[in-house]
């Protein structure tokens, strides 16, 4: 059960990262997304890169991203993902949420005994 929760959280985070990556870099294929996330987040995707694909599917089903076939840099067929208008809205909303949450949590961690007395 705990394991499942952890993956849920991970996948939530992962989804946000996917959206942000696509927002910044435009259309990308799965491997491209994985690379960028790896570069920025470090070890989050250094193993289990495959977990990205279920997340992509979920986002596509939700309408946040769309995909089409295109040619990759090695001239093979690859699936390219692009942010939709709805995805952009979702990204904005979730970024705000995150910033709020992060700010609150940050303040909590910075809090000292005298602040709470």
């Amino acid at each position, binding site marked *: 059960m705990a394991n499942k929760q952890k993956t849920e959280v991970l996948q939530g985070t992962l989804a946000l990262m996917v959206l942000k990556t696509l927002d910044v870099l435009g259309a990308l294929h799965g491997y491209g997304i994985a690379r960028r996330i790896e570069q920025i987040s470090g070890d989050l995707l250094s193993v289990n*890169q*495959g*977990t990205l*694909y279920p997340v992509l599917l979920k986002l596509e089903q*939700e*309408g946040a991203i769309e995909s089409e076939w295109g040619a990759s840099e090695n001239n*093979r*067929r690859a699936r390219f993902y692009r942010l939709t208008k709805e995805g952009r809205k979702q990204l904005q909303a979730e970024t705000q949420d995150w910033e709020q949450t992060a700010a609150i949590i940050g303040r909590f961690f910075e809090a000292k005994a005298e602040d709470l007395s």
Partner: protein
Amino acid sequence: MKSLRRFFLRLASFTTRRAQDERLREEIEQHIALQTAENIRAGLSPVEARRQALLKFGGVEAIKQDYRARRGLPFVENVVQDVRFALRLLRKSPGFTAIAVATLALGIGANAVVFAAMNALILRPLNVPQAQSLYGLQRESDHFPAQSYPDYIDLRDSNRSFDGLAAYNIGMAGLDTGENTFPAWLYEVSGNYFDVLGIQPYLGRFFHGADEHGPNSAPYIVLTYAYWHNRFQDDRTVVGRTVQLNKHPFTIIGVAPPEFHGTLLFLYPDSFVPMVNQEQIDGASFLNARGNRWVFMTLGHLKQGVTPAQAVADLNSIGSYLEKTYPGDDAQMTFVLARPGLYGDYLGRPAQAFLTALMMLAGLILLAACANLASLFAARAVDRSREVALRLALGSSRLRILRQLFTETILISLIGGALGLWGSVLLLQWLRAWQPFPQFPINLPVSPDANVYAVALLLALASGFLFGAVPVRQMLHTHPYSVIKSGSTGKIGRRITVRDILIALQITICAVLVTSSLVAVRGLARSLHDNVGFVPQNSLLVQTDLHIAGYRSEDVPRMQKRMIEAMQSIPGVTSVGFSSQPPLSNGRPSDSIVFTDSATDLHPANAATDAMLFSVSPEYFHADGTALLAGRDFTWQDDENAPLVAVINQEFARRVFGSATSALGRYYKMPDGTRRRVVGVVEEGKYTSLTETPMTAMFLPVLQSPSTQTALVLRSNALNSTEGTQQLAAAVRSKLRGLDAGLSALIQTRSEAMDFVLFPSRVATMSLGLLGVMGAMLSITGIFGMAAYSVSRRKRELGIRIALGAQRKEVLQAALGRAFKLLAFGSATGLLLGILASRVLASIVYQATPRDPLVLAGVVLAMAFLGLLATWIPAQRALSIDPLILMREE
């Protein structure tokens, strides 16, 4: 919104899942290719580069799983997968599947048939508007719904509880359309009948209360839709045409709607005529006879707001007034209300009791079927414990395994249910078309409707869960580690379990049924060859009613003589005679009490005997093969001017005169005081049923005791073959047409005519046989399940025994000893009980006796065969155990 959209996408991708799988595969491949290229650029060897890429990507299968779970409808996909898997499993063991499906088909089919009958006869009301408030009247004293006509009129006019009371009577008349005459069943109905029921005509108009102006004032006839369709080919111009009913003109004024079949559920009339015209139909007027309860049924809708109890009080107050006013005719005039469709409680109550009992029996059969299937599935669960353990070890959840198990049981129960339903629909169709008595328009409205289908489906699902639930505990307690380590052993039970008792009970019941059905079949076969006081073989029966054909008074005997002469002129006919009513055929012969010659007070209590009464022609005894023991036959000189004479049977002679010889020439008295001299004595016979105790009977010369009912008996050797019978029947028909084209006759062989009296024993034999087959099926599955279970559980033990050198016989004894013990015990008990039960059977089936070596041998053989059949497969399995394979497996 979002989740809805996802659901539809999932639904869409459920149908395109192959293409989607392909897409993922391609993406993964591309991903790994790119990563590999990247790794090579970083300086790794191609092989190491690909390995690293794969490692980094993670478990491909797990991701595919996850992907799939997100993509389609995992629940539906799982169900589809489970169903496929279950189908594969079932195909793999066809014997098991066939037995399970057949057992369930039987159980569910039996329930569906009985429920359909119950639904048609008890649960579904008559097909008239507002049937809920429609009640029939019946007397509290005898539960008989009949009333006399004057009483009906008083009840109709004085009550304040009904929106009108209608009445009907069932009759028969020769209906002559101008071309030919056919007997037609009709309702004689009160003028307000259609108005009270709220039925609108399909064509033309109906008659109303206002059309009645005293006896024979309303010569109108309304046809039922079916009769109009069959006899008049949907001819819309029949309205206004005149037809002859028993030679009286009636005008067709309308046709009833197709869905209206009168107000009795199982007997559909051909037409409706006003009751005030009953004299023209019945030949005598009963309209003023207050003491004669001939009006079949009185019925009506309760007024709005009137309860049945209030209506009864109202009717009873009218009744007590009638009792006081007409003390000679009316007594016990208290009423109860009942549903009219099954003739009130008169048939309704026995029908309900019978069907309820049948329903319980069918329920028990299904329950026993479920119990057997449960043990079958338990055996299977043991067989499959390794598979289950393996799946558990590979990470399958127990829930998933249970779901798979239930998918399998429910699949079996649905297939069995569908098959059972199909069988029951066929049976019901046959029942619907079944005409046990060609003379009566019997119609059992038992076509299955939505209710029946729903009940069958529910029963199938419920039984699937029921017998699927038994192995659940076993499955849940499977521990992968211990199973794989030690194999499936399980404890070997030595004590008597509930399952054993259940199976022994089933075998016992089965043996009882087999015994009684064999006894019944033998009795039935014997009764066809027994002396019944006449010789049914080589004899043809031609039944006519000269009254229906329009003959009156002195025309009747004249026509009867001409008929005999015409029949005698047919080549091959050796002897011809007639009786008012042939013994042992449709309808009960009339009877009369008689007194000894010395009796002066002719009160019923002083009667010497109550004897069957037949009016017969000369030569009747010879034609029917009745042996004349003493005295003489009648001649045409025994007419109304000659001294009154009679021929009596041996039983009559013995009871009234002491012996056959002493009866000749002696006198006895009829209830009207006339004296009759005994001129002959014939052998005794069976008159109303094959199982009756010896009855007294008298035969009177037809000229001294006139009867319009004329049943000609022709004796001819041509009747040996079907061809000869058909030729003779055709000859009889043409002769009759030559005498009177409007005369309708029922022509049957004498044996066919006996179908009527053989009906109860045939039905008893048939239903016993059917139940016997069901019992046998259940016993087979029961024994099979138990034997298979015991072989499965003791596989290891048996393997070791074989390895240690046990012989086939010993292996079989170890594996199946218990099943055989139960079989022997159950069969013996059942045979004993069956012999006891045959005493009850003897009252229905003539000469049913279990003291018959053929019956005893038959039962023993049947049960042995059954045991062999049921244990064949398990025995083969036990014998084919190969210790080597077994050891390697474990």
